[in-house]
């Protein structure tokens, strides 16, 4: 799966808004829909990364933001769709990153325990 870098996505709305005053107020349907699709993909990726287990707070926040984006889409408020989607995407990415971190910590701790045990068996020899 190809994921766009956060700065690239970040650039879509935020940096565009900086470059052209008032851009955020003129988000069109296509841009908002693209943002929403990418947000859904990021949140689904976080779920596959086991974020429910390792980063539940972040995943919950991503779900709430995604719900807000989808509600805004129902109301055809494309600016809100883009804003909430942008947030949901970045929080989804954060959930994935934290899940990876915690998974690595758990795996390393397990190996550390094995190493400690083996060292003990060998009488503390290095």
């Amino acid at each position, binding site marked *: 799966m190809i994921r766009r*870098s*956060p*700065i690239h996505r*970040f650039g879509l*709305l*935020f*940096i565009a*808004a*900086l470059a052209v*005053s008032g851009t*955020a107020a003129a988000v069109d349907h296509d841009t908002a829909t693209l943002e929403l699709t990418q947000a859904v993909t990021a949140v689904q990726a976080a779920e*596959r*990364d*086991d974020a429910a287990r390792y980063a539940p707070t972040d995943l919950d926040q991503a779900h709430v933001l995604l719900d807000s984006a989808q509600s805004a889409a129902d109301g055809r408020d494309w600016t809100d769709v883009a*804003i909430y989607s*942008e*947030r949901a995407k*970045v*929080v989804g*990415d*954060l959930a994935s*990153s*934290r899940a*990876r*971190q915690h*998974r*690595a*910590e758990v*795996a*390393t701790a397990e*190996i*550390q325990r*094995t*190493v400690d045990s*083996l*060292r003990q*068996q*060998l009488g503390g*020899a290095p």
Partner: protein
Amino acid sequence: MKTSNNHRFLLATAIALYVAGCATVPPGPPSEVVRLQNDLDRLHSDPRIADNAGTELANADAAVDVLARNARVLDAREYEQGVFIADKLIGIAEASALARFEEQRGMQLGAERERLMARTTTIDSSTTTVVTRVPQRVVQTDTGELVPSARAELMSMQNQMPGVESRLDARGLVIRLGDFMFEPGRAELTPTAEQSLDQVARVLSTDTDAGIVVEAFGNDGLARERADSVRDYLDARGVDGGRIMARSVSYAPGAIASNDRRVDIVIQSDLRR
């Protein structure tokens, strides 16, 4: 006279407003931006993060920089969005770098575990295992399964893959990918696993004679998927997939190690020559 007084009043009011305005606009970036900058400084000064920083930290740096330079010209909603996004990008940078730090530590500990396990095995079976070490980096077992030149070749390969968990045993050069090298419950490789396999592919692409067997351990279909995933990755990196035998290895029912979902890449260099 009345007009002159009005002018003086307006001028005084304008000066007062200007002074008041100057007094109420704090110098420097807004407090939220300062907080973000402080968070970034903390990440840069933490060697676990700074030494393992990827593009994520550069992204966070860029986001905070853009925000700091434009904070005064953004409207409230844009500014709030910028702070939110930059804050999360900093979190991603921190978590990603710490994940890499732990994955590398895990690989080092894994190598240490292998070394210690080899020592305990030698102690347990010292009467049945005879490993003869002879000079010039040549090692030969009592079974004669490995000829000295092949062993030396494998050792040379091993030396070209620093940071990759590997060992030489009777099967050949065994490169181990632990369960944590895959996405949990899936066959996708983590970025750390890909880094290791990149090194393996570099070495194997220059030695077209070496036999390669990928063995994934586990009692379900995931093991085979992981074996195929490793073979496909090496194939995409220039190692002919036709040279690679990918297979799953099942544990006996009730085996103590049955939760060990490792994948071994066994390189048999010229062993049969």
